[in-house]
């Protein structure tokens, strides 16, 4: 086999893009969700948070307007999506801090902690959902 890089590149190989998340192991899921939740927190959660603080702190009318807005079930559902993003990013971030200190790096503990992060993110969302409904 003495093919040059050029001739090797010319060979047409079948392409198979399997992007299904279900094939990722738990640490991989935690990783990609950390990224997705981080982006969600940058946009739209961050500007919405600032807008919320501004409106509610500026005047009593603003405060009550938000209280009324918050009563809508769709607003609560969207809020829960943001809660999941924050909770997942929070727990996954803490897991990464421990991994950075070389704690729980071996395969089995890393898997266990990844599952714990995924479960805690969902459980927090459910708990907040129960509280606000």
């Amino acid at each position, binding site marked *: 086999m003495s093919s040059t890089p050029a001739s090797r590149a010319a060979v047409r190989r079948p392409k198979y893009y399997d992007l299904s998340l279900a094939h990722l192991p738990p640490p991989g899921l935690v990783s990609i969700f950390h990224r997705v939740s981080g982006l969600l927190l940058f946009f739209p959660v*961050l500007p919405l948070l600032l807008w919320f603080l501004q409106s509610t*702190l500026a005047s009593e009318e603003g405060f009550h307007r938000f209280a009324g807005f918050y009563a809508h079930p769709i607003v609560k559902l969207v809020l829960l999506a943001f809660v999941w993003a924050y909770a997942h990013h*929070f727990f996954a971030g803490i897991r990464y801090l421990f991994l950075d200190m070389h704690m729980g790096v071996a395969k089995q503990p890393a898997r266990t902690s990844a599952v714990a992060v995924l479960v805690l993110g969902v459980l927090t969302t459910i708990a907040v959902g129960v509280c606000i409904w």
Partner: protein
Amino acid sequence: MVKQYTKNPVGAHYGTRGFLIQRFTAVIMAVYTVVALVVVIGHRPAGYADYKALFAGGFGLFTLLFLAALLYHAWIGVRDVLMDYVKPLGVRIGLQAIVATLLVFYLIWAAALFWGRWA
């Protein structure tokens, strides 16, 4: 033939500072999250006056610190994502400029909201 290494790192510890700031700001935000939960659940602000008073003391200052940490953390995070997925240099720099401008704007906004609130 080995493919030429084309990345252009600047200096021996390129990226270390960002990595560390990402962790420090994360710790500030994690602590704030716990404190904020305790404060809000502990006080259960009943109305506007209660709610406003919540940010009057050290918690208002901590909130501003949290927001500043969040903005720096977001800069490094979004920059990393853009570096990973957006390959054309012009587009990447353009997007980074938009993100940086937004974040500076948010910082001014956060400061305007909370500056002096603790006094």
